[in-house]
């Protein structure tokens, strides 16, 4: 397999893997947080305002780990520095050869 094909294959595979594993942890964490908050609201409906506010903030924080993984995979697919290096090198080699 050529260099450029290898870079493309590994980038695409790693992007999928990043999102896959990056989604597991936050999903479990958010589920736990939401379940706990619902149980607390059921027990203390008076405190629902404060509970849901902190729940939103915590969910956003938990979710940001998933978002980091998503950003990394987007960079791997759409703005891959290795890919642009390889395409430039190939173009330069073709220019020198032809």
């Amino acid at each position, binding site marked *: 397999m050529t260099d450029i094909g290898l870079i493309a294959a590994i980038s695409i595979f790693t992007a999928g893997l990043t999102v896959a594993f990056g989604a597991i942890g936050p999903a479990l964490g958010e589920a736990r947080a939401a379940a706990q908050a619902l149980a607390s609201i059921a027990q203390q409906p008076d405190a629902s305002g404060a509970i849901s506010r*902190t729940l939103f903030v915590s969910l956003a*924080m938990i979710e940001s780990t998933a*978002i980091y993984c*998503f950003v990394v995979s987007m*960079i791997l697919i759409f703005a891959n520095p290795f890919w642009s290096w390889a395409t430039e090198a190939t173009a330069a080699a073709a220019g020198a050869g032809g």
Partner: protein
Amino acid sequence: MEITPDARILFEVAGLPVNATIFNTWIVMALLTIGSALITWRLQPDVPASRWRTALEVIVTAIEAQIAEVTRQPSTRFIPFIGTLFLFIAVSNLLLVVPGFAPPTASLSTTTALALTVLVAVPAFGIASRGLGGYLRTYLQPTILMLPFNIISEVTRGLALAVRLYGNIMSGAVIAGILLGVAPFFFPVVMDMLGLLTGLIQAYIFAVLAMVYIAAATGPVPRANPSPSSRERAATDVGALDGEK
């Protein structure tokens, strides 16, 4: 596909390229400033308030109430900064529904700039309320051993603020773009509606986190005694939550 509006150059002013991010930021700023200037044009205290003025008052009092609830401190000092952050992010995220408008918050440079203002505002408010020595001493809490970790947490919270907002808004745009190729007409609309909700929540989160960081720097000095007041607990709890991450 482009994952940031930075790459789209609209026109050049005196040789300087103006990209979509800068242009759309100015649109949002103009909308906010001209809108509120027009509404508060010739304010009079006695006449029955117009609808627009009532709408503005609803927004401002809601922000005030939220700040008071989060910090348990008088909100007058914070509302210019926190309210501006919230309104700017919320309006630029909600303008997602305008065709051809790329929200400036979908660019990492905008969100980094917003996070940098928070990073500057935290020491500024802290020094203003505690004095230079009092603020610097908070870095030594609870022991001097925590100094490097306190400094690292300052930097990482700024990084997290920037990447969180950027990632959320950018992911909405990218997913809508991908779905546009796969299943046009219906699913992109649903995802854009979800994007509106996410955008508003992220604006709220950004403002609340900035408020929590500032409140932790200006609030009562946390001590190691076993019975902190509820106010200190509220401020330190959310701060500790972020510090753990």
